[in-house]
């Protein structure tokens, strides 16, 4: 059975936990489910990449990050300059994922400046030049046979890169805070997904895995109110996942490069238990 999936984490509101969730899903899939997983960082902030590999700060004063020399590169290799990034999908057309410390988990890191350049493409060219390209890449027979699953982390915008990710995906998952701006963005996300599906056949529909409430504190009135608002909206309610993520410092800790995966925390750790359950529900929906 070919259950190759491409999951995109999206929400055009910033700081809602897209990167945290992308990271954790990638780790869950590789560590717990034993799936060969590829993470793709499409955010010029390179946040996800920096969790897994030692990104290099460009020395041009821009404070932008770029991937380091690939561990498999040797100076005899004249065909390749030793660096690969997700932007290469568009530029050189050749992408070489980096291994992470986790078995079965690779990452195609972001290159801040090159990705930013991809976003500059003219409006009328976006679909042909940016959007289709990612889909072509992700559905290359080579990619599909090398990985069981691809997880894409996006930037908080509806620009060409995020659009490309959504068009190339089989599933999306939407983390959201229960506060006004993120909640308002949800309606737009659902509408965008419906638009994408117009162009797809019945069995290729882009599925919303769900909306994942993050940093949720039901003792806070605003959070309660927004939850109520969403659960009473017929367009949104069906998508709200039956699990959520609370606000915990351990999630922040799990984002430090040297701390590593939350799945190496003790099984009794509350944050680990909570997010492991979230991942279980998410992957049940994907593979179930």
């Amino acid at each position: 059975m070919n259950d190759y999936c491409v999951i995109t984490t999206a929400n055009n509101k910033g700081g809602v936990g897209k990167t945290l969730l992308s990271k954790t899903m990638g780790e869950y899939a590789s560590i717990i489910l034993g799936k060969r997983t590829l993470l793709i960082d499409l955010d010029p902030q390179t946040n996800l990449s920096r969790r897994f590999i030692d990104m290099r700060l460009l020395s041009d004063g821009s404070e932008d990050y770029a991937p380091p020399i690939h561990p498999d590169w040797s100076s005899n290799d004249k065909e390749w300059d030793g660096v690969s990034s997700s932007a290469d999908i568009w530029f050189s057309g050749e992408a070489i994922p980096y291994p992470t410390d986790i078995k079965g988990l690779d990452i195609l890191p972001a290159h801040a400046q090159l990705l930013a350049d991809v976003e500059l493409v003219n409006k009328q060219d976006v679909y042909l030049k940016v959007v289709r390209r990612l889909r072509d890449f992700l559905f290359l027979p080579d990619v599909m046979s090398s990985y069981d699953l691809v997880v894409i982390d996006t930037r908080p915008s509806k620009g060409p890169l995020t659009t490309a990710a959504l068009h190339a995906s089989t599933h999306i998952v939407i983390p959201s805070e229960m506060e006004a701006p993120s909640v308002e963005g949800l309606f737009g996300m659902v509408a965008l997904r419906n638009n994408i599906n117009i162009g797809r056949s019945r069995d290729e529909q882009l599925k919303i895995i769900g909306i994942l409430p993050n940093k949720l504190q039901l003792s806070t009135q605003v959070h309660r109110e927004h939850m109520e608002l969403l659960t009473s909206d017929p367009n949104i309610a069906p998508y709200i996942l039956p699990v959520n993520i609370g606000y915990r410092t351990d999630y922040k800790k799990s984002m430090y490069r040297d701390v590593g995966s939350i799945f190496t925390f003790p099984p009794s750790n509350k944050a680990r238990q909570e997010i492991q359950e979230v991942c279980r529900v998410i992957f049940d929906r994907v593979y179930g």
Partner: protein
Amino acid sequence: MTRKRFSVKDTHLQESIGAMLQEQNQVGEGRIETLPLQTIHTAEENPRYVGRITPAEIRDHRDGKIDLNQEVGDRVSFFESVQDLANSIARRGLLQPIIVREDTDGFKVIAGERRLLAHILLNKERIRAVVRPSAPEMEERAIRLIENLQRENLSFAELIRGIEELDSIFQMENARPMDSTELAAELHKHDSTCRRYLQVMRGPKDVRQAIDHGLITGLRPALALVDVHGEDERALILSRLKGEAITEDGIKNSPASISPIVQPETRRGRRRTKVNLGMVKNTATVKHLIALLLGEDQMDERFSSLDWDDLDQVQATWDTIIAEHDRSTPR
């Protein structure tokens, strides 16, 4: 393990995106042109001109006339970095045009010396460049801006934004950031004040945002926040002080003041009072105090899902409890 190498060449995309970007004018100030290399000269007085290697020397290097073994470390690594850049340009094309300004004898490089040198190394004839408006035009803009900045009724946010724009004009002219003496000369203010303005203007992004959103309306609180190290710490302070104008004292007291606090706030003429139970270092003390105040039952109900290390959240929860009490307790 064999390297995974995936290629999408030749599927849909005929021309590379890099080439496509060349045709676009997404470059802000100025127009894009493809200039002959010999019309461009480098600004040798530019302090960012690392290694101080001239176009002539690169030409010699290209023609094999320079023995790198005879060179000192700094210069060797500079030659190498130009070579690296040249390789990348040969492969992907020039992604970012260099920036030049028209002057009396051609064009002067404002940004992109290395890229220019890499082109020389590659023996190219032309380079893509953004041509910036000539000096008099910029001067005119700067004068207008300075007049504006000297207005009395400028908000702090407007002031900082204005200084930033002035600095960017200055950088286009001089290829280096403005210093406080230069700013002081333009604004007729004290050098030390100007140094602080620049410190805030070039400070962390989140502080700039808080200024832009009107959360911080003065130099002193802005500086106090710039002094707080760590984005998370600053975010915590900002969120704790949400909704009220931020003061220097508020910031300085904030990171340590983990005891239950109700922020002072006037509401319909009835003044709220801050209740501060003192300073603690140990979170367990906070937990203990709250347990004493609330009783175990209430404590379980309100704080069970809480991470006690996260004082931000503890504070938020405590604030709601106090507010509820305040509302329901008869005066």
